[in-house]
């Protein structure tokens, strides 16, 4: 008969070390490689999302009615459909489209790198959310600052770089921080399309060794560490972007 201690982690610390060891019978190196892939995808998709978000926020605020409606449609649809469905749709449709385009142009179809596909797909999803965050942040900038920039004769791009982006940062950072944390966790969804990031690696490791608790908890600890480290860095960014502003004391 098996006892509780037998089952939990197959008990001994020795086997735990063996399972998570870096050298090949252990899966430690694979897990870290998975984590690295996850962080890479999260960084890429967050950056792409930020780019789309800046364009989207500008389009929604200052664009022509058509542009405004199209961005409205984009944010509404992406935020209403589950990420998993969007990933499947964009993953298949995107690779299909690129290959058709290539054949049309007379090139041979290519196998699209999973990493790039993942970044693009999650970036499109992130873009919808960051459009809304950045739109709100731009609206929170005191109108006089933007008018002053215009009065100085700044070109729109200079105005974006010198006034709008720095001035909106303190309003945007809490929302963007949330988005970054969502991005790190959304990378796990790519496991469903078979991309080898942390969650998928963990499932493979757990399936091969039958030590489900060990590996899933180890992966959970890695994700949690990523979140906590991000929080520390984000709070530093936030303090930097808030410099010179009156401090907001939370009242209870």
């Amino acid at each position, binding site marked *: 008969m098996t006892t509780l201690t037998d089952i939990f982690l197959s008990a001994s610390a020795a086997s735990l070390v063996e399972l998570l060891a870096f050298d090949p019978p252990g899966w430690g190196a694979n897990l870290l490689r998975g984590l690295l892939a996850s962080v890479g995808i999260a960084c890429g998709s967050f950056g792409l999302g930020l780019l789309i978000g800046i364009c989207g926020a500008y389009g929604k605020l200052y664009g022509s*009615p058509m542009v405004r409606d199209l961005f409205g449609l984009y944010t509404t*649809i992406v935020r209403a459909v589950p990420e998993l469905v969007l990933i499947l749709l964009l993953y298949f449709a995107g690779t299909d489209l690129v290959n058709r385009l290539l054949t049309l142009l007379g090139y041979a179809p290519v196998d699209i790198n999973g990493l790039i596909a993942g970044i693009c797909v999650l970036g499109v999803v992130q873009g919808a959310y960051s459009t809304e965050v950045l739109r709100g942040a731009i609206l929170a900038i005191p109108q006089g600052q933007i008018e002053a920039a215009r009065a100085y004769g700044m070109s729109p791009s200079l105005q974006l770089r010198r006034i709008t982006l720095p001035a909106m940062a303190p309003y945007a950072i809490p929302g963007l921080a949330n988005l970054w944390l969502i991005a790190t966790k959304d990378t*796990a969804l790519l496991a469903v399309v078979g991309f080898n990031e942390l969650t998928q690696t*963990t499932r493979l490791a757990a399936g091969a060794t039958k030590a*489900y608790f060990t590996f*899933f908890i180890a992966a959970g600890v890695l994700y949690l560490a990523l979140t906590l480290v991000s929080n520390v860095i984000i709070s530093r960014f936030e303090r930097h972007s808030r410099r010179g502003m009156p401090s907001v004391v939370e009242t*209870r």
Partner: protein
Amino acid sequence: MSTTTTIARTSDWLQPHRIVLIVLAAAIVFACVFFMRWDWLPAYLPLALQGIWRTIWLLAVTAALGITLAIPIGFAQAAGPAFLAVPARVFCTVIRGTPLLLQLWLLYYGLGSLFPQFPWIRESFLWPYLRQAWPYGVLALTLSYAGYEGEVMRGAFAGVPKGQLEAARAFGMRRWTAFRRIWLPQALRRALPTLAGETVLQLKATPLVATITMVDIYSVASRVRQETFVTYEPLLLLALVYMAITGVIVFAFRKIEARIPARLG
């Protein structure tokens, strides 16, 4: 009078570019209906309806269980003693800091491989349920909702002005009465606007249970794709179904919010 306002409203809504967009959308829908393959639809319709029902059931059950769990978790963090507040905070951090997919697989594969090793569990009346996938799906989604909503409830409980609670004490209300009549209703009212967003997020989390073999609408669509080799049509229909459910959720919460007086003390 009323006719002029309706005319004003329609003309507001029907600007020239909108007409172009509507025509374009109609053309796309037309193209989708006539140039894509929908012949599989009648055969899979009963299964799809069952899947939609399963998704809605899962959403309703986990949201209801999750909010009942979130109230004590939020309250413990806002006003509880340290030995309750610290575990509650750790719970929220862990749930919010790890992907739901990982939590789901931990519960399903981990607990699922743990339980059969105990004979007394296998002999208990719960065993027929524990062998299926849905208890694990419901548990994971409930915990996730409780974790996210617990954090919201913490802010909501902390945001109720102290004067209200002091007034309740001054009226001679006992602690439980003051909680039930003053603190909880005001906190819930504060949390209501975020509740709609959280519920939509919960809906978007439900397709994950397809990875542990639960048959919701998402897994019906996957099955159609595997059996008929039709790639896009089921996914498009799936997106449409989720958008419709999201619309219903947003509409329902807007109705509820409109019924509750907005002014907060």
